[in-house]
């Protein structure tokens, strides 16, 4: 064979690694390992930095910080209960709205409602919704959403003011506009993760439902959604986690007033907005206190996200074993 002879006489194309190859290999793998450790280190450092800097405030204010309702720099009284309430309230409202539309969108996109090309259009719309920066949403909220919903809010307040949810007028920024914008921002997350969950439902389960004579929506509501329920629940938890930590839209729209109110139209405050507004002007004295608030936010979001991730991996494992 001429070809092989040529290959042998010419420069070798294969051979054992040389000493320097070994050395390079070792060091390269070492660097890669260091970088993997770097990620773990960063998370550790994050917890340590915020936790350590918060210690003076924790020593001084203990857990009363979490239940106090006033934030007064002059009197040195600090409490973040209104912020915790505002964070949870706005996130739940956003979850209710964004969750409904997000899951509907996921069903709409995965259950063969649309020809492929049209589905791509809607999928792109959802992706673009996720791409728009939150500060732009906040800005849009101030100048378009608030003027748009204000007449509706005032009418509801005038007619149904006795219901606690409508008990105040909307003076501009408030819970409802903030939650609406927040809902738009978490919709893409919920839609994307629920779509994954719905796609994991084995096709034969759907076929079986149709074979038994189920209509399209009987199959969706009674068979497909229950099968994907764990994954969809995970999507909602992750969306909730995102809503808890969202800053700009809330700092711009929630009104930044320290009050506990059930009313959808009253201004409020959230932990993230509190940090955004107070950090730039914080003095030596306030930094540990703000770090304490940051630590509370960090722990809440970490817990929610870990629960969401755990549910997701559990549900996909379930799906795989069910096949």
């Amino acid at each position, binding site marked *: 064979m001429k070809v092989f002879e040529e290959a042998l006489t010419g420069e070798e194309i*294969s051979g054992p690694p040389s000493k320097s190859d070994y050395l390079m290999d070792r060091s*390269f793998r070492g660097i890669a390992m260091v*970088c993997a450790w770097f990620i773990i280190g960063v998370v550790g450092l994050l917890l340590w930095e915020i936790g350590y800097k918060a210690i003076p405030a924790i020593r001084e204010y203990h857990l009363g910080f979490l239940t106090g309702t006033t934030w007064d720099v002059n009197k040195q009284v600090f409490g973040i209960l209104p912020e915790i309430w505002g964070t949870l309230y706005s996130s739940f409202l956003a979850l209710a709205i964004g969750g409904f*539309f997000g899951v509907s969108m996921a069903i709409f996109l995965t259950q063969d409602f649309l020809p492929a090309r049209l589905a791509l259009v809607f999928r792109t719309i959802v992706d673009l919704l996720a791409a728009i920066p939150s500060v732009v949403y906040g800005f849009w909220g101030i100048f378009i959403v608030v003027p748009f919903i204000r007449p509706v809010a005032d009418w509801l307040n005038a007619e149904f003011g006795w219901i606690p949810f409508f008990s105040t007028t909307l003076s501009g920024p408030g819970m409802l506009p903030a939650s609406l914008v927040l809902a738009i921002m978490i919709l893409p997350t919920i839609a994307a993760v629920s779509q994954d969950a719905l796609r994991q439902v084995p096709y034969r389960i759907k076929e079986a439902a149709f074979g038994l004579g189920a209509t399209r929506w009987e199959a969706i509501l009674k068979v497909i959604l229950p099968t994907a329920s764990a994954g969809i629940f995970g999507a909602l938890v992750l969306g909730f986690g995102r809503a808890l930590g969202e800053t*700009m839209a809330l*700092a711009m729209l929630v009104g930044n007033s320290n009050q506990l109110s059930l009313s959808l139209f009253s201004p409020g405050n959230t932990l993230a907005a509190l940090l955004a507004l107070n*950090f730039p002007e914080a003095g030596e004295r306030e930094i540990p206190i703000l770090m304490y608030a940051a630590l509370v936010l960090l722990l809440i979001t970490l817990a929610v996200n870990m629960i969401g991730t755990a549910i997701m991996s559990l549900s996909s494992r379930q799906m795989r074993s069910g096949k």
Partner: protein
Amino acid sequence: MSAQDPLFTENENPNLQRSLVEPRALLSTILSGAAWIAAMFASIPLFSVLYGLIVRGGHRLSLEVFTELPPAGFEEGGGFGNAIVGTLVTVGIGALISIPFGIMAAIFLGELEPNGKVAYAARFCAKTLTGLPSILAGVFAYAMVVLTTGTYSAPAAGVALALLMLPTVVLTAEEAMRMVSAPMKNAAYGMGCTRSQVVWKIVLPTALPGILTGVMLAVARAAGETAPLLFTALFSSYWFVENGKADLMTPIASLSVLIYNFSGMPYDNQIELAWTASLVLVMLVLLFNILARVLGRKKV
């Protein structure tokens, strides 16, 4: 379908059509309509945002806004040239930190030791970081860099943005590397390649489109971030490079913080500029998103 078939002897054409007025079928139709309406409804915000940006921000779009400095309240005209430069500088620093570390970590996670304990822990940490509120990245950079150096600066903002970019870079790069087919790698091993040679010559080139997709998505996200910049970069009304000199350790402007600052201003000129800045920012972010998508489509 022979005549002997018992099912079809009585009635040659069984009626498989469902009557539309039958309650079950009616409910199904109504719900389908509701799903259409919900999807349409969910699309309204996007069009409303884009419409607002184009109508209110479009008419101020001129060369002037890219070359001039932000105006004070009572001034006319002006632009946000320094904010565009600032956004590019801060995102650039963030990318310089997060991309090398992210890709090297992804090589470890996706190729070198995907099932080790370190890999599991690192992957878990990266996933946890995806859900990190962006403001906390700012708090972290504030504690780490601003308090240490004693000044607001571009590197502080870069650290905060890097923290937010890192998980996207790592997780997409890892995913891309896992897609590289085993026979190709085995062929390289068969020729006597070391593992790092396989990574350099086979895995990285093959996974490059996927890795770049992740990088572009991370850059797009970082460009739009505001919260981590508020108290790391702060803001500046001057150029980053003045008289041919650039001082890294000074506050630096950015598009997103400019929008935030101007949104609360009572002057029409500044509000108008904020609309235009939003338009420019959204175009910038969408550009990177489209790049990510185009690169991602070229899968091998």
